[in-house]
């Protein structure tokens, strides 16, 4: 019966070629999986899989190279943008992207991301912000919210001593080398669709040689937040969205022209 049905049906959602068949090590409901898939779909749609080189971070996504069906390397903690710079400079015809979490990009790798963006390196950064260190077991991240309890801020993040959560999309957006910087969220279906559009635009910006592009993506960590996957989506909406407003923080005119194209 199924075959009969497929005959007059069209495939509207399929497994992307840019993902390997491996099941990820991510916890149930972890939105890393969604973001991986969106990147893979975009790379498929742009037809650049065979000339894309990815750079994995240290953090939960350290094994990203097992899941992306393309050339990949694994950077030292925080150094993915430097590594991507090295790759892109000697292989300017390749599509190069980094995939980084909040500890990787906004703490230990702050210097590298700022200078890479500021140089206008023709790479794309996918920045996954879930307000916590996942891999090491739920410590305070640079993006942890004020008052948020983590294993290293057991009484909640005290901004008097730990400072304020880093707003990376705003910070990177200020830099002249950044052509397109946006903050999106994969907390519901419309948000996921908008995030995919943003990722696609970010890669198109690189392909058009317009400058550095970054998509910050609000994501979840149900395990370390101590809630169910479904509750995690709500927790992020209630707690992260007010502090991390969605939207573009940098769109240069050339990118705007690119957006206007059908």
């Amino acid at each position, binding site marked *: 019966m199924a075959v009969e049905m497929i005959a007059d049906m069209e495939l509207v959602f399929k497994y992307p070629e840019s993902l390997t068949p491996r099941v990820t090590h991510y916890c149930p409901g972890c939105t890393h999986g969604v973001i991986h898939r969106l990147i893979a779909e975009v790379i498929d749609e742009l037809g650049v899989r065979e000339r894309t080189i990815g750079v994995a971070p240290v953090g939960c996504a350290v094994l990203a190279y097992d899941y992306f069906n393309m050339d*990949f390397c694994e950077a030292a903690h925080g*150094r993915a943008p430097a590594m991507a710079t090295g790759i892109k400079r000697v292989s300017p015809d390749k599509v190069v992207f980094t995939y980084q979490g909040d500890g990787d990009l906004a703490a230990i790798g702050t210097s590298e991301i700022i200078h890479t963006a500021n140089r206008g390196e023709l790479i794309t950064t996918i920045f996954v912000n879930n307000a916590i260190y996942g891999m090491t077991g739920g410590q305070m991240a640079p993006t942890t919210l004020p008052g948020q309890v983590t294993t290293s801020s057991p009484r909640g993040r005290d901004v008097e001593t730990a400072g304020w959560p880093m707003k990376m999309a705003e910070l990177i957006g200020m830099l002249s080398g950044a052509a397109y910087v946006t903050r999106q969220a994969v907390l519901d279906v419309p948000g996921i669709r908008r995030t995919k559009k943003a990722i696609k635009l970010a890669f198109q910006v690189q392909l058009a040689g317009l400058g550095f592009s970054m998509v910050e993506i609000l994501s979840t960590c149900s395990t370390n937040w101590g809630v169910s996957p479904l509750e995690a989506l709500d927790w992020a909406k209630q707690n992260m969205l007010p502090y991390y407003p969605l939207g573009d923080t940098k769109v240069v005119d050339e990118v705007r022209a690119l957006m206007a194209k059908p």
Partner: protein
Amino acid sequence: MAKELWEGNAAIAEAAIRAGLEAFFGYPITPQTEILEHLSHRLPELGRVFLQAESEIASINMVYGAACAGARVMTSSSSPGISLMQEGFSYIACSEVPAVIINVMRGGPGLGNVAPSQGDYFQAVKMAGHGDFHPIVLAPGNIQEAIDLTVLAFDLADKYRTLAMIAADGSLGQMMEPAEMPPLRPVRPPEERAAWALTGAKGRKPNIITSLYLVEEELEKVNLRLQAKLREIAANEVRWKEYSTEDADLLMVAFGTVGRVCQTVVREARAKGLKAGLLRPITLWPFPSARIAELAGRVRGILVVEMNAGQMLEDVRLAVEGRRPVHFYGRMGGIIPLPDEILPQLEELDAATRS
């Protein structure tokens, strides 16, 4: 090609270009900044990549990236900057990608000073980063050697897919002398990059370059492979120079600039009737232990001279295995020992071993 007057740092930079350097990533630090400056105009005029990074940490990770992409790449720095790069060295060594590092050593520890030193011997030879690995470490004693060893460093790095480091000192970087440059080799075209390199998975399975192996047995397997490679390097690539060792009964061991100073000491000692000889290691790793052990059987005593507190001294003692007295003379703080200071040390060794 005829000899020209070259400053050490510029000579190393130009030699790298002649060896087919495709990309340089670096950060200014005295006393090696002329390398970066030379490359900042030469590489772009040749259509190659020059990038002044925001830090040594960024530099080495850019090198790592470019090396993963299959390009011939290097960085240069001096002692404190090299310390910052050590994490990257470890990743590069485990990932088995080729890269060349120039360390024009300065006085330490800490910020130290900008005067010539050999204080990074341990760092280069024993512990270039976390985990079990050694870079190939080449120690030039003059500018011609700095040129030749820079070219060799690229070839060895490529051949063994490893890190090769030039360990020079500040005086070698800053001084000038006549030297001959090798001819300009063509740059390897991108389509001829190695099969393991990240060049895009077109018509092949993806290439993955990582230093992460979560399964213990897998990581041990990687380590065993690295160790086998190191043994191969140790078997094939030991290099040194000897001066008047044929009939020597007092042996000096010294590398780099102070090795050169000791050549003068050999002459002066011989004029005074002491049968002195000198072994100058060119490769600090792998170390010419076997040859030193051999010579130790023929001499009365050994004097190690260094611009540090006695670092290579430990490797000489390991080679000699207590069979002969091993004396040491060293200066720190960026001071180069003079022949007038070293000769009395040799005379003391002579007296102590004459029975």
